[in-house]
């Protein structure tokens, strides 16, 4: 059963409104092609992203999570991305330590003018998640009595 061939990764992406979301929009405007596997959630700043968003996404079946924000020093709110950087460095290392493939959680700095970078980031990320395979994390919901 070649089910796996038809599997497409589901990637949740949190994009900061001022830089990354605008960058992704530019990629669209410029008609750049990139894989459609990313579901974008717009947040005001990468600093708004709660580690719980990442955990909940992964546990509910996302094969990968991406957070994208402004380059450090360019944050619309001055420092939001500095806090995000610290927070997610720790989360990244923790998830890897607990056995979650490090490819499944990534971060990028994409500015509003970097449409091409956005396309490239998504292309690479999708390829890496395809290599990593479907996430088994959301499979463990089954407890007594549930029909499969």
């Amino acid at each position: 059963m070649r089910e796996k061939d038809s599997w497409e990764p589901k990637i949740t992406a949190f994009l900061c409104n001022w830089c990354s979301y605008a960058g992704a929009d530019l990629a669209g405007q410029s008609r750049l092609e990139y894989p459609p596997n990313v579901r974008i959630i717009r947040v005001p700043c990468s600093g708004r992203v709660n580690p719980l968003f990442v955990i909940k996404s992964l546990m509910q079946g996302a094969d990968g999570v991406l957070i994208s924000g402004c380059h450090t020093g360019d944050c619309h709110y001055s420092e939001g991305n500095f806090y995000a950087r610290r927070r997610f460095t720790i989360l990244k290392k923790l998830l890897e330590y607990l056995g979650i493939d490090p490819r499944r959680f990534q971060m990028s700095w994409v500015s509003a003018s970097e449409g091409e970078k956005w396309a490239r980031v998504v292309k690479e990320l999708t390829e890496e998640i395809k290599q990593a395979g479907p996430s088994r994390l959301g499979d463990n919901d089954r407890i007594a009595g549930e029909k499969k």
Partner: protein
Amino acid sequence: MTEELRNKAKELLKNKQVELIIGYQRSPDGICAKPCFIDKETDTDLLIWDTYCVYNLSNYLKEYAGRKVGVIAKACDSKSIVVLLQENQLKRQDLFIIGVECRGVVDEKGAGFAQKCKSCLSSNIPIYDYLIKEREQTRKPLEDDDEYEPIRKIEAKVLLERFKFWQQEFKSCIRCYACRQICPLCYCPKCVADQTQPSWFSKAANLTGNFSWNVTRAMHLAGRCIDCGECERACPAGIPLREINKKIEKDIKELFKYQAGANQEQKPFFACFEKSDPEDWIK
């Protein structure tokens, strides 16, 4: 030391410097210790100090906020008081901390000293109002003890092995939340695990729910946990919780040169940043 402790406690209650003293007394089995709450001078003879005094009594301080309380604190307990003060959960002037130089506490599940004591410099008590010094030789931490050795062992495993290891551990979690209740730094009035609108993770004790709970608690303690080890001691399922919290502690020390509970003026870890924080993993 017990004598000195009782006398000091008596004095504090007599002078009305404190309304209540939180300390240790002998437990009903006659061997171990248990927490005790003393508000009468006559009861100070119940206080004991020995190697069975495992508990982190700073956990009880939050309930008595606003009242003048005396508390007995080992080096590890004292660090959690520091973090609570950093986070404005306690007022310094309401506390009278009786620091005690400890020689190590027992490992209740096994034999010998608790794992956390092996690399502890027990005379390094960051905050106290009165210090009871160890009369005999203070036990030195083991010269070559690497407190992060169990962490390194797990880091050395390949990804799939690590995953299987932690899945096996989290399978036994019963979500009793004892780890949260006994932790002095878990003080949220409404814990994220109890929230239903929205529900962040399942209340069911299945693997996904348990994984989410333990990861979330570890993240919420990042940069704050001072390794008192109470969570691991309390866990009825024997999950090696210290090996999760200490992993974060190790990363924070190595990457950011930050250690929790050092002094009251320090800023909490996630409340600050450096321009030079590492970002080599970010695309």
